[in-house]
């Protein structure tokens, strides 16, 4: 779709073979002398220390979970503990070459990775930077605690700080790095480049790719590693992440100065087990995990299997792969073998493996072998190494004492609104970073010339429709909001399927291709999960992003990314991260069961998402403007029934200048006295038609309210209307069962019960598949449904002849049949 890449039929039909590179397996050759030169004794000993600290940290948790005590300190930890005992070398070896600018995203089993990366950062950073970071983070709260028991140098304090902040987080305490909102499986510490760890298997893959995209597009230093398990290779989103990471366009179409592919390393921490299932030999078919690289791109992702039991083998691999990534030749895949001696979790009885297998791997335990290596090569004495172990226990005891005490480390007040306040940042920023946005045209020469010149209101002085082609449409109003922010925020990017050239399947982005370089507007692979997941990573790394799903129905493909990632990370980070992500979702029509569903109610159910659904061009622009200046995640629904419609409701039409619609505020589209009709989305127009007929035939004056927002939503204008009319019908195109309308109805009934002159009635789509276009009138709410519902359930209309069945008995019947 780019016109720049021609498909040559001759070449396409030629006979040949696909050949791929040979993939190294455990290629690292130990060379103690050279290693001593590269790292030096002090660093090698520090690496050992870090491994010991990780082992002790995990051992303490293991004891607490299994025995309720560690070193005589009793504590009941109710949350999860997925331990990495045995995997220390892979974490520490990886961290050695990583700077705070390099990001790692992990899994549910990432305590070791957090500690290793932070310890590495401490070793690299100046005392001043360390102090500043600890003083600033959560306003110094964790540091205040650590100061009470830690002593020694700033670096010593910093090590205790990391141990304490991580443990307090695992224990769900307010001084934890994420105020306890993340816990064991999601703990992280962004200042040192330790980014969110994810309890969804493989969940970090596409988020990490998004973060790498952010680095590449915004020319930020550092690489990004997704530390995910070997079993996550069975997850679709992991594959989608690799597809997006490996797209050719970075090298074929993007500006050369951007630097090629995003610097993403998929590091599969290959401990040979899922929970109990074995990817190698049982649940997957790759034989050796690294082979996956062969299926992704000609470079086979530079894939290697490396020996994760040797920290120096891992460090070596990271150093080599970092160069590839920095040269824009990624993505990279590492199959880092390791072994966890502990179970998947404390409840794991290890029924899936024999004791002798564990014993055999114990012979390869990195803590034993690396310690022997240090002693053999004269880097440290046995006593010195013993002292490290003793110190580790001593520090863990001090840290555990502080982290387990409710006086020293209280939890956030769960009874108050402390958690509620973390759900949204409610902040607004014109741009997420300073700098001049990169564009191809001056703003004055863009398609704004065309749209600004159009009629901004769809009706002439006599109320007659103006020609549609010469009037600003809903789609063009969205375009104006998009291009405005593109020219304000240098970090803003937009992508999805067919976003460039085609302009999005419905032409909303028409005119953007000419104005924006590839790296700010591009097509992705058809990977809905990764489209949203990468956007999550892009946003939480600090960039503004607009991801697009062509149809609401495709949200199913991105379920985890919308429900568990986009919605959760602000609160799970205790607002340390923000999520300036707008997910544009188009609600279809005429395209049948899998392309014409209104799924607004699904996201309404998920805490952490702002949900918007404009019904007119004025709101389309004003609400998208609002969403694009906010820093909270927004699911922005649009209607395909409306894209080509002009503004006919808001006097004066769509302003040329920038404006915003107030967040969460419904709008009264028509004032009335007798009945209130409330709609979400395009159903507005059917309700207005119903209001016309009710006025004409029955002399009823209807107040018509367009909610515009689903969350947040200010109910007050609706309640005020109900107090006036006493009668209210709610309508939307979402299927009736489980519709958000029922939530609204319940709230209205509870708030305004005494004002109601009849039950709050709902008009939703039928609980069917969406039938063919020709039968849609039987499926989506029509004007007649609204009138008949009013007649049957609230206000019998004199001599009204119903054309549909909307009685209370029919509700019973439909539910009995499940339709």
């Amino acid at each position, binding site marked *: 779709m780019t016109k720049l890449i021609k498909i040559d039929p001759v070449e396409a039909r030629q006979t040949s073979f696909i050949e791929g590179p040979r993939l190294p397996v455990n290629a690292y050759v130990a060379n103690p002398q050279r290693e001593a030169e590269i790292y030096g004794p002090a660093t090698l000993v520090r690496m050992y220390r870090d491994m010991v600290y990780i082992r002790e940290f995990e051992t303490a948790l293991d004891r607490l979970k299994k025995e309720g005590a560690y070193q005589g300190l009793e504590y009941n930890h109710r949350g999860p503990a997925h331990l990495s005992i045995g995997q220390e070398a892979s974490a520490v070896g990886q961290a050695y070459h990583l700077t705070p600018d390099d990001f790692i995203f992990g899994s549910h089993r990432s305590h070791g990775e957090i500690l290793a990366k932070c310890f590495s950062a401490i070793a690299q950073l100046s005392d001043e930077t360390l102090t500043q970071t600890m003083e600033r983070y959560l306003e110094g709260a964790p540091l205040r605690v650590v100061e009470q028991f830690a002593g020694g140098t700033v670096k010593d304090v910093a090590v205790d700080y990391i141990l304490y902040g991580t443990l307090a987080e695992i224990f769900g305490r307010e001084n934890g790095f994420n105020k306890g909102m993340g816990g064991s499986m999601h703990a992280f510490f962004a200042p040192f480049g330790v980014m969110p760890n994810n309890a969804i298997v493989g969940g970090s893959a596409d988020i990490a790719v998004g973060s790498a995209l952010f680095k590449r597009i915004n020319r930020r230093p550092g690489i990004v590693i997704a530390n995910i398990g070997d079993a996550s290779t069975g997850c679709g989103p992991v594959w989608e992440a690799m597809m997006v990471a490996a797209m050719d366009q970075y090298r074929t179409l993007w500006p050369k100065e951007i630097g090629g592919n995003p610097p993403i390393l998929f590091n599969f921490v290959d401990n040979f087990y899922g929970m109990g299932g074995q990817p190698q030999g049982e649940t997957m078919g790759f034989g050796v995990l690294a082979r996956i690289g062969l299926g992704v791109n000609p470079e086979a992702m530079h894939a290697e299997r490396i020996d994760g039991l040797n920290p120096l083998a891992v460090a070596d691999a990271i150093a080599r792969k970092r160069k590839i990534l920095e040269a824009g030749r990624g993505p990279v895949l590492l199959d880092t073998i390791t072994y966890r001696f502990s179970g998947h979790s404390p409840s794991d009885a290890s029924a899936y493996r024999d004791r002798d297998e564990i014993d055999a791997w114990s012979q390869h335990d990195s803590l034993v072998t690396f310690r022997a290596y240090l002693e053999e090569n004269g880097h440290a004495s046995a006593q010195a190494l013993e002292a490290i172990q003793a110190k580790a226990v001593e520090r863990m005891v001090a840290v555990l004492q502080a982290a387990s005490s409710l006086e020293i480390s209280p939890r956030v007040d769960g009874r108050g609104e402390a958690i509620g306040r973390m759900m949204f940042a409610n902040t607004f920023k014109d741009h997420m970073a300073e700098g001049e946005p990169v564009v191809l045209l001056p703003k004055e020469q863009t398609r704004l010339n065309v749209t600004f010149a159009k009629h901004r209101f769809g009706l002439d002085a006599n109320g007659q429709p103006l020609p549609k082609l010469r009037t600003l449409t809903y789609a063009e109003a969205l375009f104006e909001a998009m291009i405005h922010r593109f020219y304000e925020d240098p970090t803003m990017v937009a992508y999805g399927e067919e976003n460039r050239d085609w302009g999005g399947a419905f032409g909303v982005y028409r005119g953007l291709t000419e104005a924006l370089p590839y790296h700010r507007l591009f097509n992705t692979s058809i990977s809905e999960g990764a489209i949203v997941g990468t956007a999550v990573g892009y946003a939480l790394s600090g960039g503004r992003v607009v991801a697009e799903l062509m149809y609401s129905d495709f949200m199913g493909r991105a379920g985890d990314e919308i429900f568990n990632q986009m919605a959760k990370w602000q609160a799970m980070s205790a607002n340390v991260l923000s999520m300036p992500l707008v997910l544009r979702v188009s609600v279809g029509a005429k395209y049948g069961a899998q392309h014409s569903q209104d799924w607004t109610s699904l996201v309404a159910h998920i805490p952490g998402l702002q949900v918007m659904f404009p019904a007119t061009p004025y709101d389309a622009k004003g609400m998208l403007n609002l969403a694009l200046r906010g820093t909270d995640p927004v699911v922005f629904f649009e209607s395909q029934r409306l894209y080509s419609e002009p503004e006919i409701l808001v006097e004066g039409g769509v302003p040329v200048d920038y404006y915003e619609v107030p967040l969460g505020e419904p709008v009264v589209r028509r004032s009335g006295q007798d009945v209130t009709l409330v709609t979400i989305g395009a159903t507005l127009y059917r309700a207005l038609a119903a209001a016309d007929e009710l006025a004409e035939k029955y002399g009823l004056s209807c107040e018509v309210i367009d909610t515009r927002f689903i969350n947040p939503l200010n109910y007050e204008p609706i309640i005020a209307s109900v107090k006036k009319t*006493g009668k209210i019908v709610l309508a939307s195109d979402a299927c009736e069962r489980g519709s958000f309308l029922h939530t609204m109805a319940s709230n209205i009934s509870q708030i305004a019960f*005494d*004002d109601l*002159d*009849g039950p709050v009635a709902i008009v939703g789509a039928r609980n069917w598949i969406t039938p063919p276009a020709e039968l849609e009138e039987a499926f989506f709410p029509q004007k007649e449904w609204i009138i008949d519902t009013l007649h049957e359930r*609230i*206000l*019998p209309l004199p001599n009204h002849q119903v054309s549909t069945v909307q009685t*209370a008995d029919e509700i019973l019947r439909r539910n009995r049949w499940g339709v």
Partner: protein
Amino acid sequence: MATAVVMPRQGNTVERCLIAAWKKEKGDTVTAGDILCEIETDKAMMEVEAPASGMVLDLFFQAGEEVPVLTTIAVIGRPGEDVTPFRPNGTADHDESETAPTTSPNPPILATGSGGSTAPTPRLKISPRARRLADTAGLDLTGVQGSGPGGRVMERDVQAVLTARVIDRPAQTASQAPPLHPTSVPTGAPVDEVEIAPVKGMRKLIADRMLASLQTTAQLTLHASADARRLQAYRQRLKQSAAGLGLQPMTVTDLVLFGVSRLLRQHPQLNALFSGNTLAQYKNVHLAVAVDTPRGLMVPVIRNAHTLSLSQIAAESKRLAAACRDGTIAPVDLNGGTFTVSNLGGLGVESFTPVLNPPQVAVLGVCNINLKPVERDGGVEFVPQLGLSLTFNHQVVDGAPAARFLQTVCQGLADFELLLAL
């Protein structure tokens, strides 16, 4: 154990009764069967007997109060027994137990209660908004017909009652609250010229029913007159008939009732009840007769009038009217009419628009007999004519069939003896 005295239920439609007078006082000793008090419904006066012997331990309501049926109104027992458990909620003494096994005094909601032996009355269906409006206005909703789905009382129904009340409200009351229609309310009437009385009991019911009738049906009245010469002659003959025949004098109403009882059988669409969704046409004729009593209009029913002879109809009519006037009419005699006859002719009314008694679909008003000029053999002759006014519900009865029925009645009465063959 003390015994509760419960306000008895009077048929299915009565929801509350007025305590007209207590015949016993607190502390009196009574024997089972003694009259405790007199109560008045919208339809009749009745007495409540003591259900047990003992001392009247407490009376929970005063004479003049309206009490929901099945509510405990008094307690009989041994001196010193605790009456608290019997006390209905909301009556005096606020420290009573919450477990009082009585019904709430809030009448429309509660259908069953302490009596336990009776069938539940239909629950009043009303929207929260309408209830609040009614409560604010102190409006008793008994008898108000709901216009919402399933007969739910909606705000507009309450407003209609209130509007009517404001229009009729005497000046003094109206000046206390801003009237809905200020211009329709006379102002400035001196206080001492007005006697304020609560509208309740039977009057209240009549008020509500009349309003509901006019608001919820499409009433139309046709006027016609019947040659009354043979009617008058027949009455004369009855008066003068041999004593041995045992015939009593009869009123014009009696004769009209007889005629209607026979002719209605050929016009079943007028001998019908309309419920909004269904029209029940009756084969049997149950004639309701409007009776003027000191407490207001009552409408007892002559059951199966089409099977009764003229004499039997006259006797039944007389019996029912007397029972209404002295307050001894049984509730059962006030229900089940399928067609009503109302006579204002005795008061010189020449024509009127009788108000329907829903769910009935027609009512025949009988007017006075006037001499009217009739052309005969090229000259004018004055003939006594009986005025008849037929109101019918145009929702279910069209004009032509109603007119045909009225015409038939006129023809039948004009040739009265022929009706005796029917």
